[in-house]
């Protein structure tokens, strides 16, 4: 990882120097070492540039804003991030000409919450040693397997393919990441009784504080003004008028991004309440795959997304209402 980070910095300096780009979009250290945040750098600020196991943030969406500025920007995209960028190209939200994309190797990003959940507190630094994480804490050094601390999205990694880029930075070293079935949890929920599912979601969605972090980070949520913020839409509300508002918000948000969501997992990663929001999106993805054929948003620039497409032989909505089991 360290090697890739050095290569990135080198390329960033070179591309700034030869005038290919006039700024760099990457990650910088936040308040805590695990709290990396997206940032725009110029040549003299590059010393703050960081790429490590906490560079989970998908930088694609930030390019919407960058494309409105003058000149070309360099952005580093991990393999999964390139799907989001490609989808934004499909939606004309970014200008491919104004972005120089370097695809960077990714071995999976670390979820600090998982480390905390292991009971490891007072973390001051984390080093990677092969497949292990060495965790310095104020109580001394701890260890854990790297794969036990990865973000959910990395456990279900899409692979190391970059669907859009100008150049690639990879070390060539062999490694594996992911391998989990991303629909396992969805299938588990589907197998529950409706009552159990209801209880599950009621428990999860009741945590929502409507901070809108999921929406703000989502590359598919690129509306200029969200319907839920628009007083003229008839559904906006400053404070929740009733308990239904969150349901409506999350269902409608999932519906609006259905067929466009690349499953980048940012919604769950940023949720301060730890709501597994990606399970809503993955349900739609699973349904699309089952009902209308395999589809990966952002994989190419030609396929119509499922909700803007149809076949005459599509399944009827009764496939849902007539499902077996209790109601």
């Amino acid at each position, binding site marked *: 990882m360290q090697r890739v980070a050095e290569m990135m910095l080198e390329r960033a300096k070179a591309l700034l120097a030869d005038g290919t780009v006039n700024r760099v979009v990457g990650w910088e250290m936040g308040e805590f070492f695990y709290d990396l945040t997206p940032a725009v750098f110029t040549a003299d600020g590059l010393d703050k540039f960081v790429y490590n196991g906490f560079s989970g943030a998908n930088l694609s969406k930030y390019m919407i804003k960058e494309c409105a500025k003058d000149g070309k920007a360099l952005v580093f995209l991990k393999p999964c991030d390139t799907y989001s960028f490609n989808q934004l190209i499909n939606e004309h939200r970014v200008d491919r000409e104004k972005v120089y994309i370097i695809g960077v190797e990714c071995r999976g990003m670390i979820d600090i919450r998982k480390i905390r959940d292991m009971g490891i507190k007072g973390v001051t630094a984390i080093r990677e040693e092969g497949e292990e994480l060495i965790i310095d804490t104020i109580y001394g050094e701890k260890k854990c397997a790297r794969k036990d601390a990865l973000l959910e999205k990395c456990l279900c990694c899409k692979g190391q393919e970059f669907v859009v880029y100008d150049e690639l930075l990879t070390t060539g070293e062999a490694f594996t990441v992911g391998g989990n079935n991303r629909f396992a949890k969805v299938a588990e929920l589907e197998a529950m009784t409706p009552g159990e599912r209801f209880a599950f979601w*009621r428990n999860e969605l009741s945590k929502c504080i409507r901070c809108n972090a999921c929406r703000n980070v989502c590359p598919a949520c690129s509306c200029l003004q969200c319907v839920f913020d628009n007083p003229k839409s008839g559904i906006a509300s400053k404070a929740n008028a009733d308990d*239904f508002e969150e349901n409506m918000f999350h269902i*409608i948000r999932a519906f609006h991004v259905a067929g466009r969501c690349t499953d980048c997992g940012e919604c769950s990663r940023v949720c301060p309440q730890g709501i597994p929001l990606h399970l809503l999106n993955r349900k739609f993805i699973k349904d699309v795959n089952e009902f209308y054929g395999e589809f990966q948003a952002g994989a190419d620039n030609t396929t119509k997304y499922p909700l803007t497409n149809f076949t005459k032989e599509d399944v009827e909505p009764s496939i849902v209402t007539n499902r077996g089991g209790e109601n």
Partner: protein
Amino acid sequence: MQVNEKKGEFKPTIVAFCCNWCSYAGADLAGTSRLSYPANVKIIRVPCSCRVNPMFILRAFQRGADGVILCGCHPGDCHYSTGNYYARRRMTMLFSMLDYLGIDRKRTRVEWVSAAEGTKFAAVMNDFAQTITELGENVKLGDLRCKE
């Protein structure tokens, strides 16, 4: 939800979105043919089934509807040629999501009713109203976030 106090029985509130060209005309034909269905079914006229936003359906539940049904032209017969194909996909996805959230999947339905199918319209509404009456009052949709 309205409870008819005089009779003491549960009278569900049912919203039926009907496309102007087929199903609304089918409902008219049911009327012309004097085919009865429960009075708690209320029809909203839309130009096409593809005009129905999932938001309208959630809104109905939010405001106390016990069942929502969408009726459109039969696939292949859409006045706008393809509208109901889009509606079919959208509703399949929405209904599947509601089911996934553990919400009674029988509270939502899509039926294709042509302008000639007054009988079918009445039969569908009778059946749907009965289903909803059996399900009882819609609690869950308004209740997903209630803290215990």
